[in-house]
């Protein structure tokens, strides 16, 4: 057995309404009436920043939440409705200083031109802390909200229909990224002598033509502070692993044990190599749903209580952890040894499990020299050890 020196891990928190357990809104700490206010989100992100976390992600969707695989439900006993995640991120950006802001954006029905300038603007507003989590949707009801196309009904995610949606997502990301580079950093010259505000030789048409769409460019928004804000994606299978390997800076994956973690990391690294990106830094974060209490029995009891309220046992694509901060720290370090570079924790109850992460787990990891004691960079790329990339269009 090889012993590896402790290397710091990265921590993200995934924010979704009052938490990931469908009955989380019924907990006394949940504040469900405030879900649609800026103050609610500012409070959660401030708490995450208090814990020195790398970033928060914010869930989103182009239709109401649903307990069904593909179709809407008619439930009234769970949170339904949400605000646009990019705008939530932007609303809290001026109130925070160091934490990364990574809203979810659906790329299936939306315009890459709009998304590119929105995330670039989030990067300006946060002075270099923006990213995006791209997501596809195969839901027929969401397609009907746009009425521009129908998507063939799927029974599961391993189908050509989904592969095609991911192919489109890859094109979308490519356009978003090219548009971020479509202005060189020093394009604005303000040369009073010639009267020129920009050097137009440093602005570039991107001339993207793919199977799904074409986009001319350049962006209307200059290159953002980070050059390339972060692109991230959740992935459960080979097709999305390929998207992560080719186009993302962080992939979120859902191993349930270290063997799975090792296998997923190996698959992503292999895809990265075949995409010719082996040298590029790519983080692979493990997703975990967490119920955290100082007493392991209390965490389990809380989970049981919420399951009872929900009327069914909570299940998830990600492993569900129930226990103490120290037990979670053990598990994260074990997963880290299998090749994960960080974790995206999904608090079961935002009002309870987020503070348990920032005030319980984080100090525990700090004691083990496994997590930062202060923010060491003022951009999200900096926090993740990613350098500011050269512009693909700049003459060398």
């Amino acid at each position, binding site marked *: 057995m090889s012993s590896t020196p402790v290397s710091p891990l990265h921590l993200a928190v995934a924010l979704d309404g009052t938490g990931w357990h469908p009955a989380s809104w019924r907990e006394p700490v949940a504040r469900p009436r405030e879900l649609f206010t*800026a103050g609610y989100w500012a409070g959660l992100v401030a708490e995450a920043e208090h814990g020195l976390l790398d970033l928060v992600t914010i869930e989103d969707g182009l239709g109401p939440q649903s307990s069904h695989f593909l179709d*809407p439900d008619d439930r009234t006993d769970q949170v339904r409705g949400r605000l646009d995640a990019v*705008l939530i991120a932007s609303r809290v950006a001026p109130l925070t200083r160091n934490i990364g802001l990574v809203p979810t954006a659906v790329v299936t029905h939306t315009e890459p031109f709009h998304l590119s300038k929105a995330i670039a603007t989030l990067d300006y507003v946060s002075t270099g802390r923006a990213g995006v989590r791209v997501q596809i949707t195969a839901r027929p009801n969401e397609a009907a909200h746009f009425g521009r196309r129908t998507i063939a009904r799927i029974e599961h995610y391993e189908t050509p229909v989904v592969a095609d949606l991911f192919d489109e997502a890859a094109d979308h990301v490519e356009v978003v990224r090219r548009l971020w580079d479509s202005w060189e950093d020093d394009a604005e010259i303000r040369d009073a002598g010639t009267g*020129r505000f920009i050097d137009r030789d440093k602005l570039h048409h991107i001339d993207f033509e793919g199977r799904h769409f074409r986009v001319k460019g350049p962006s209307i*928004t200059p290159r953002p502070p980070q050059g390339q804000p972060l692109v991230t994606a959740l992935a459960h299978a080979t097709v999305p692993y390929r998207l992560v390997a080719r186009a993302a800076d962080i992939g979120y994956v859902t191993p349930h044990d270290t063997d799975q973690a090792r296998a997923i990391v190996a698959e992503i690294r292999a895809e990265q190599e075949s995409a010719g990106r082996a040298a590029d830094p790519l983080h692979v974060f493990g997703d975990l749903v967490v119920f955290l209490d100082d007493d392991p029995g209390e965490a389990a009891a809380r989970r049981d209580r919420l399951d009872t309220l929900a009327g069914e046992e909570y299940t998830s694509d990600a492993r569900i952890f129930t226990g103490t901060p120290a037990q979670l720290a053990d598990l994260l370090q074990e997963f880290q040894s299998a090749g994960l570079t960080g974790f995206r924790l999904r608090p079961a109850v935002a009002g309870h499990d987020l503070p348990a992460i920032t005030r319980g787990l984080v100090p525990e990891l700090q004691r083990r020299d496994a997590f930062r004691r202060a923010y060491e960079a003022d951009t999200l790329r900096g926090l993740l050890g990613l350098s500011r990339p050269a512009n693909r269009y700049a003459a060398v």
Partner: protein
Amino acid sequence: MSKPLKQIHLAAHFPGVNNTTVWSDPRAGSHIEFSSFAHFARTAERAKFDFLFLAEGLRLREQGGRIYDLDVVGRPDTFTVLAALAAVTEHLGLTGTINSTFNEPYEVARQFASLDHLSDGRAAWNVVTSWDAFTGENFRRGGFLPQEERYSRAKEFLATAHELFDSWQGDEILADQAGGAFLRDAKAGAFVHEGRHFDIHGRFNVPRSPQGRPVIFQAGDSDEGREFAASSADAIFSRYATLDEGRAFYTDVKSRLARYGRRADQLLILPAASFVLGDTDAEAEEIARDVRRQQVSGATAIKHLEFVWNRDLSSYDPDGPLPDIDPDPGEHHIARGRAQVRMYRDPLATAREWRERAAANNWSIRDLVIETGNRQNFVGSAETIAETIDTYVQADASDGFILVPHITPGGLDAFADRVVPLLQERGVFRTEYEGTTLRDHLGLAHPDDVRDERAAS
């Protein structure tokens, strides 16, 4: 008996992507850093303005096949910067120009409803239309819209967005933690829209926002545009800021309201207006002349002439006489991605008139462009400007103005410090915000109240 004084509405237009913005001034800051937007918004709020206004252009302008480089180039995403501004202001309305051609109703309605929630009821939407394939090249849907269909699509777009806003009534969320009901009604947000341009159905996923719907602005000037505004806008962003033109426009548009069962105070007329403030009227005139020369460099003057001539005039000397050659009467191909092109409907006549005026006054090309274009609307001491604005509003040339400073971000500071107090002394401008939402500032009813009023009558 004299009629009571009208209260003036004031707004601040972030200096934009056109030649009225003087980027060469040493005081000119960034047009893209958030700190500039925050400074500008805080100044507007300190002055108790009704709202901040952002324009939009979805493709960089080109001239002669190349990106136009003489004006400010580049701007942020409208929604994203407005959401951030909601964090650094408390009362100021946040008005964004959003195109109805290169967007879909579900997405835009989500964004405006979200912005309204995140700003506690301060969102407004300036609905504009565009149809050109040039801008369409930036979008997967392309530039597919024939010009004659733009209002038809815009109307249906807005009506559809309203159906989405109205798909939640506002009382659906119970969030009863003890009883276990989050929603009162499983059908919250249900909508069906079947129309010529949009055929969509499902559930809108943003609950009703504080204002019910964002305040709706309209900016079109054609007969069709005025009718659109009379039927469905809360305010018009107009370009008639002089006394006579303003009164004519005001009378025309307000007279169209009765047809739609609306009162005159349900549609505000707010022209864009530039200004130059000095210690004295004479000093202001002098500064204004300097500003116009800064706004129109020799290179800018040539480019401006090219709009009219529809030809490459780069070989002409801006300090020399106007071209002898006539404008190319063919289809306009020189300038793309800007609205001014439409302003010269008879280029041959314009060229003839300009040559005559230049010859009579011994003007160069640059002199001519300076003299014929962009004279600031309000030039004078603080007293003069306050009096002029008040006079115009009381004479029904407008209900107020959307001020367009020429310097970013400090161009509004002196107006806030010196003109606003005089308007307050006159009793025609608020000294404190009286309400919390933009509808409150503009004196517009909440859509639910309008609905109740109609139901009761």
